[in-house]
C-alpha cells in the first residue's frame, strides 16, 4: 500500500429540511459516517483512534439554519474520477443533506477559492413596525450589506420540505432580506444583527445560507 497517496476532494452540499436541527458537531459526525458508507478508499488519520480526515473551514452553521453552500474537504487514498466519487456519495447521503458537487482539488490544506463573504437570506413571519428600515440601519452599523428581497425570488430558495410550494413559503414568510456578511475576523453572525431589532419570541425568523461570495463583491 502506498501510504502516502492522499488525494484531496471537496464536496459541496445543501443542508435542508430535517437536517437543519442538528448542531455543527453532529453534522461533522454525520459526515464521518457518510464517508464510511460510501465505501470509497478513505484516508484515515493514524493513531489510537483513526478518523477520516475532514475539514469544514467555513463558519459553522447554527442549529435551525439551512444552507445551500456547505462544503467539506476530505481525502482518498486513490485518484478516482469525480463522477465515480459523486455516485458513491449520492447513494449514501442521509435525509436532509443534498449533494451538489464533488471536485478534485489541488490541496487539502489550502483553499484555492476561499469565500470572502456569506450571503444569507433571512425570512420573517411578520414585517410590521417598520422592521425593514430598522434592520437595514442595524446592518449598516455593522458593515454588513443588506437589502430587502423580492419574495418571488426569496421563496424558491427555501423550499424547506419536499412538496412545499412557494405559495406556502410566501404565506408563511411575507418578508425577507438578504445579508452579505464578510468571512474572517470581522464575521458577524447574521442573527446577532437581526436580534437587535426583532424579538425572536414574537416573530419567527428563518436563516438560510444562500451562497458563498468568492470574489470581493462590488460596492453598490
Amino acid at each position, binding site marked *: 500500500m502506498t501510504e502516502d497517496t492522499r488525494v484531496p476532494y471537496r464536496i459541496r452540499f445543501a443542508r435542508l*429540511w*430535517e*437536517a437543519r*436541527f*442538528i*448542531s455543527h*458537531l*453532529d453534522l461533522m*459526525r*454525520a459526515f*464521518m*459516517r*457518510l*464517508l*464510511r*458508507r460510501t*465505501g470509497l478508499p478513505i484516508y*484515515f488519520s493514524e493513531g489510537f*483512534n*483513526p*478518523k477520516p480526515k475532514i475539514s469544514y473551514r467555513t463558519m459553522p452553521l447554527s*442549529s*435551525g439554519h439551512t444552507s445551500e453552500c456547505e462544503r467539506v474537504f476530505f481525502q482518498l487514498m486513490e485518484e478516482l474520477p469525480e463522477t465515480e466519487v459523486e455516485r458513491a456519495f449520492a447513494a*449514501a447521503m*442521509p*435525509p*436532509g443533506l443534498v449533494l451538489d458537487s464533488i471536485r478534485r482539488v489541488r490541496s487539502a490544506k489550502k483553499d484555492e477559492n476561499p469565500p470572502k463573504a456569506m450571503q444569507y437570506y433571512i425570512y420573517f*413571519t411578520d414585517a410590521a413596525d417598520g422592521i425593514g428600515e430598522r434592520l437595514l440601519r442595524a446592518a449598516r452599523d455593522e458593515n454588513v450589506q443588506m437589502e430587502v428581497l423580492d419574495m418571488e425570488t426569496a421563496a424558491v430558495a427555501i423550499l*424547506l*420540505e419536499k412538496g412545499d410550494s412557494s405559495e406556502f413559503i410566501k404565506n*408563511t414568510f411575507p418578508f425577507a432580506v438578504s445579508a452579505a456578511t464578510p468571512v474572517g475576523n470581522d464575521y458577524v453572525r447574521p442573527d446577532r444583527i437581526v436580534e437587535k431589532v426583532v424579538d*425572536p*419570541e414574537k416573530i*419567527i*425568523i*428563518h436563516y438560510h445560507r444562500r451562497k458563498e461570495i468568492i470574489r470581493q463583491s462590488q460596492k453598490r
Partner: protein
Amino acid sequence: MTGKELRKKIELEVLPRVRKPGRYAGGELNAVVKDTAEVRLALCFPEVYEIGMSSLGFTLLYHYVNELGWAACERCFAPWPDMEQELRGRALPLYSLETFTPLSEFDIIGFSLSYEMTFTNVLTMLDLGGLGLRAARRPDSAPVVIAGGGCSVNPEPLADFIDAFVIGEGEEPLMEIMEAARRVKAAGGGRPEILEKIAAVEGVYIPSLYETGTGENGRCTVSGTPPAPYPVMRRYVRNMSNSYYPSKLILPSINAVHDRMSIEIFRGCAQGCRYCQAGMIYRPRRERDADFLIGNVKEMYRHSGWNEVSLLSLNAPDYSQLAHLLDGLSEFATPRRVSISMPSSRIDTFSEEVGEKLRLVRATGLTLAPEAGTQRLRNVINKRITDEEIIGAVASSFAAGWKKVKLYFMIGLPTETEEDVLGIAALIKRLTAVAGKKKSGRKRGKPDFTLSVSNFVPKPHTPFQWEPFEPVEKLFGKQRLLRSVIDRRHVKLDFHDPHRSAMEAVFARGDRRIGRALEEAYNLGCRFDGWSECLDADKWRQAFSRAGVDPADYAHTPYKPGSRLPWSHIDCGITTKYLLIERAKAMRGDTTESCIGNRCTGCGLDCDTND
C-alpha cells in the same frame, strides 16, 4: 390538524425555541416511515432521545415490528421540560417522530420501561399525548396502552395507568399483540376487543382483570381467577441463536449516549449474583450464533458507517464462541478502522485462546465489579471473585497498558458490617499499590482509579427481594467513612445519592398504591427524576403525603419470606423455593456455582437451552 400541518407548526414555531431541537425532529437515516398501515404502534421511551436511542431493546423492537408489511411502528421520547412547556403553551399534542401523529391517534402505545425513575415521564407522555392518565377512564376510542421491559416484573406501581403489561422479553408477545389488533380492527373492533383478545397472549398481564387484596404490612396484593391467567408467566425467546436482530439500524442524528453498532452476544446470565435482577429475570443464558453476528455487523456497517462495534452481554467471558467472533469481526473491522469494544472486561477470566485475541479489542480501561470489599460479603452476594483475582486482574490490565480502572461497589448489602465497608478501602489500597509500583525502566502514566459506590436496592424476583433498603442516614454514614479512609489523591470517588436510591427501592418493591403518589408527584411537576438536577425531593415528600403513602415503610420494612408479595402474581420461572434456598445460603455465606456447561443448579426453569 394533519401530521404534515403539525410538523410545520412544530418545526417553525416550537423547535427554534427549545434546547436540542434534533431530539424532536425525526428524519434520521434508516427511520421507517409508512404512510399507511393496518395497525400503528407508537413505541415510547420515557427518557430523552439520546438515551432512548441507545437502548438495544427499544431499537430492536422498532425494526422488528416494522418488518411487518401491514404494521407501522413509530417512535416517541419524553420531552424535556422546555419542550413540554412549549407544547402545552400552544395546546399541541405529543407526537411520533416518523409522521408527527399525535399519540392519541395510534392503535397501540407501547412503553419501554427500564428504570423506575422514569415513571413520571410515562405520565407526561400519556397526558401530553392526549390519552389521559388513568386506564379506567380512557374511552373506547383511545389506543391500547401497553408496557414492557425490565421494570414490568413488578408492574404494580404503574398498574392504574397501563392497560396491559408484557412480562419478559418483548419480541414474541408484541408480534402476537400486533396480530390480534390486526384481526380485531379488520372485524371493526377497537380498544375493548383488542384488550379482550390480547388477554389470551401468554405473558400479558391486564391489571383490570384481577382482584386486589391486602397482604402483609397492608400491602396491596393481586390474585386472579380464570379466564385471567394466574400467575402470569414471563415470556422469553427460547432459541436465541439466529433470533431476529436488525441490520439496517436507525442512525441517531444527534449524539446518542451509545453511538455505535451494539451487538447482543447472548442474553441472560448464568453467574447467579444474588442482588442482580437482570441475572435472574433473563435466565437462562442463551447465545447468539457468532457467524450470524459477524454477518449482521457487516450489514450494519454498510447501512450506518459507525466506527465502533460493541459486544454486549452480562458477562462476556462466558460467551463460548468469543474467539471465533473476535477473529471474524476483526477481519472485517481492522482494514476499515472500525474498533471493537467490550465493556466490563477482565482479562484473566478469558480462555488462553481468547486472551491472545484481546489485543484486537480496543481497551479503554478495565471495569470491575467486585461489589463488596470482603470475601465474606462477596460470598453472601455470590460474587465469586477473590482479592487475589481482583489484584491479578488489575495487574494484568496495567501490564497490557490499560491505564484506567473503574471499580463498582455497593453499600447497604444484607449482613454488611463496618468491617465490610472498610474492606473496600483496604482493597483499593492494595490495588493502587500494585498499579503504582513496578514497570522496569519505562515510566508509565499515573494509574487512574474511579470508584463508584452505589446503594444496594432490593429487587423483586431475586433472592434478596424480601430484604429492606438500608436507612438513608446509615448509608450517608458509610459514605463518610469511606471518604475519610480512602486516599483521594489516587482515587476518584463517586457516590450515589441515598435519597434517590430510596425512591428506587419504593418503586421497585412497591405495590399498586404507589401509583397514587406517582400521580400526585406528576401533578406537582415532578419530571425526569433520574436526573439529579431534576429530582425534587420536597415535591415528592408532598406527593407521598397527599397520597397517604409512607415511603419509609415501603423502602425499609422487610417482607416476610413465604408471604404474598405485591408481585407474587408475576412468575419469572424461577421458583420461590430456589430463591429461598439462595437466600439461606447467602445468610450462611455459602456460594452457588454458575450453571454454565450443564451444571444446572435447579432454579426451576427446567431449561435445556443453556449449554
